[in-house]
């Protein structure tokens, strides 16, 4: 009997220790790393990846041909790929030797955990992107069946809303606006009072769409806008199948996507992010290329 008491007491003590560990465990990896060893890439369906790979790993600074996207090992031994903006943030925030890239517009919401570094010496800001100083940027596009949208009052109205005064105000906070395309009408509040639309695709666009949609629905009660998806690669399938009114892609449209109407709604910067406590402040294209293509660590000092 005594042995049992001892064993149980041991178990209890260990449990209490575990509790202590848990409470202290905030998911932080401990000491801050002094070099970046692991690149967090995105799954091949990500529009952000497409843009990043084109800009960074297509050719290096000296014009040397990099590895074509089609031939790259999409999953590399020295790093790994995750699907969504959120996953990148989670990974980078949890480990100071990680580096990843996400939509510039998603940085502001996560500055408690991650930070964006300079690229080629330039800060990642909307102004720099607009001025062309910050070189990592790509378009936000919506693809859709033009006829269907024209026939759907809510869809065309929401599209118009993006270029309304309120819409642009929202957009310009974190992104760069573009000219309103010819096929889009002017927007008047309150004309549409019912209906529902669904947007599917890139996670990079979702924060922007969320803000726009909420504001739109507040102004036009009775309407319903929902959105979802795990990457630009999912957009085409849904639009084709008719299960989404708009597909969201965070790069230039390509392939079969060009069979549909493509409307650019914004320009977005791609921010390179690291753990907020990391000493790293700047990366060059060459360093990024070496890290992502060959796994060469980046020193932070």
């Amino acid at each position, binding site marked *: *009997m*005594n042995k*049992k*008491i001892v*064993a*149980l007491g041991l*178990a209890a003590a*260990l*449990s209490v220790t*575990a*509790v202590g*560990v*848990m*409470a202290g*465990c905030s*998911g*932080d*990896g*401990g000491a801050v790393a002094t070099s970046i*060893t*692991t690149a967090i890439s995105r*799954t*091949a*369906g990500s529009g952000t990846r497409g843009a990043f790979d084109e800009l960074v790993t297509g050719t290096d600074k000296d014009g040397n041909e990099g590895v074509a*996207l*089609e031939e790259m*090992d*999409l*999953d590399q*031994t020295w790093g*790994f790929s*995750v*699907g*969504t*903006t959120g*996953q990148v943030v*989670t990974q980078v925030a*949890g*480990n*100071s*030797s990680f580096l990843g890239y996400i939509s510039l517009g998603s940085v502001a*919401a*996560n500055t408690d955990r991650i930070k964006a570094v300079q690229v080629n010496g330039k800060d990642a800001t909307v102004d720099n992107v607009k001025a062309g100083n910050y070189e990592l940027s790509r378009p936000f596009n919506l693809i859709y069946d033009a006829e269907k949208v024209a026939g759907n009052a809510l869809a065309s109205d929401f599209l118009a809303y993006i270029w309304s005064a309120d819409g642009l105000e929202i957009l310009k906070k974190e992104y760069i606006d573009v000219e309103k395309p010819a096929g889009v009408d002017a927007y008047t509040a309150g004309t549409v009072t019912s209906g*529902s639309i669904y947007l599917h695709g890139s996670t990079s666009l*979702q924060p922007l769409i*969320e803000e726009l949609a*909420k504001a739109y629905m507040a102004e036009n009660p009775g309407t*319903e*806008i*929902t959105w*979802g*998806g*795990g*990457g630009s690669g*999912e957009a*085409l*399938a849904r639009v*084709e*199948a008719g299960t989404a009114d708009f597909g969201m892609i965070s790069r230039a449209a390509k392939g*079969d996507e060009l069979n549909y109407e493509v409307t650019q709604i914004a320009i977005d910067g791609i921010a390179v992010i690291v753990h907020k406590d990391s000493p790293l402040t700047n990366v060059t294209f060459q360093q990024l290329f070496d890290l992502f293509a060959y796994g060469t660590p980046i020193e932070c000092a």
Partner: protein
Amino acid sequence: MTKVSSTKAKDTSAKILFIVCACLSIFAVFGIICYILAASIPAFREVGFFQFLFGTRWNHINDTYGILAMLCSTLVVTVLAVILGGIIGIFTAIFMVFWCPDKLHIRYRGKNKSMQNFVAWMNSWLRKINLRTIFDQIIKLLAGIPSVIYGYFGIIVLVQGGLVQMDPMHRGFGVLATCIVLSIMIIPTITSLTKNALEAVPAQYFEGALAMGNTKAQAVFRVVFPAARSGIISALILGIGRAMGETMAVQMVSGGSVNFPVGIFTPICPLTVKINAEMGEVVPGSLHESALMATGFVLLILVLLITLSVNFVPKEFKGKKGTKVLQGDEAGKVVYRKRGLIPEILKYFGMICAAVVVIALAAVILFICINGIPNISWNFLFGGDSYDGHSLAPAFLTTFYIIIFTLLIALPLGIGAAIFLNEYAKPGSKFVKVIRTFIDTLSGVPSIVFGLFGYLFFVQIFGSNVFAGSFTMVLVILPTIIRSTEEALRAVPMELREASYGLGASKIRTIFKVVLPSAFPGIATAIVLSVGRIVSESAALIYTSGMIAVASSSVSSALDPTNMGSTLTVFMYSFFAEGLAFDEAYGTAFVLLVITFVLNLIVYFIQKRVKKKR
């Protein structure tokens, strides 16, 4: 008298109905295999079957598909997890059956009066606790926790909390993390099956060994344990099947890169993870989609072969070992080895394993509670359409819908099948054996394969909504319902049926008026277990009832069952996918934990009432 002849017709048509219900499992298994195979054929054809199996690269941009690295990862991780989880699970079961004290009692021999009173007071409380029951409930709770929660636990506690330090590359993911998480997840399965196997060994073997002078530890490890061999092997095999099919938790800690599992921190991509990661972005009808289906097909066949191999484990505990002991051959050896050292060591090892299990559970629960409770608020739980905060209300609704629809369909089918198997079929007949094999097969199918089938079949019919999800879940819980109902029917004593027949009642009347009502507690247990399974299921539902992005679900759209919706677990998974709402994820995890706990409690009270009645 029309009443008389119509009874005959009613009897026959009822019997046919029950047979159809029983055969559904057969149709289901064949349906799943055929549909997924059909969807895989384009990939097998274009890529080449052997190229597909033995290719090492997976690149869907240029349509290179080879699953060898992923296959190896799955196998390696599974084997390691079953070794680790198996050892812990088996020894925990041994502890539970033989050394777990029923009652706790503190002995205080000192003179201090107030200490004496204190100890007496403690003892009056301790007497109420049955430690064995508590252990049982701990195992059941571990078994019921949704895998998404294990995934989070894996990332936060294991990876970021500990493994990151150990990894020279400071990543923490990979083979080791996956093994640990998987072993925690299969411990409950192995423990409960081993417990059953140990308890099935006739007491005479144990007593015989003791009577010959063995210590308890010697009797347990040298006689009972070997006698329970076949049951334990079955338990391990089923654990392998379970580990192979696990998707969500593995995805969160494995790293997701297609590599061979060369080092303990190599990021890997087991088969299930690849399917789950890329299914969302395939273009329907593309080679990419077919390749993923083919991956699912390979996984399915692998798991089925392993699960079916359980049937070939010889059931011989009419033990040669046992008779040897009783006949005195081994007895000679046994008697003269006084206080066998090894069994004693193993005994303490058993206690440690049991302690590990308790710690693991405590860790998981505390992890959820500490992080989750601060985030629970009325608004979070039941808030309406407010887009400012995320609300669980739509997820509650979707979960509720799926539970209701699934039960409405699965209960009649499952109970009908059980009635056929227990009341109509001849016990040894080949037909019954075939049906049972198919039911066991169905229960071994990995949930992501159910998801693929649901996507191929039910979504085409219903669209991506609650109905597709429910029909898919029917297939998932059917084996549970059939098994539990059968057990309950079997427990109804034959005398009750005889009494009913003796009074002139027909078979149908006997079944519906006497047998089923008596079996009700067992059926109620089956229902509660199914609800638990539905609540904790995610992989099967993502591609059928859908995964609505966190920010955009609303109560109004969730009210309509023809809309896509996320259940609680899928909701939580989408938090992980977005990564933007950790707090809400923990809150959801806490809610899920509470639900699991409450369900287990309900089952416990049902069983208690049944025991009282007897």
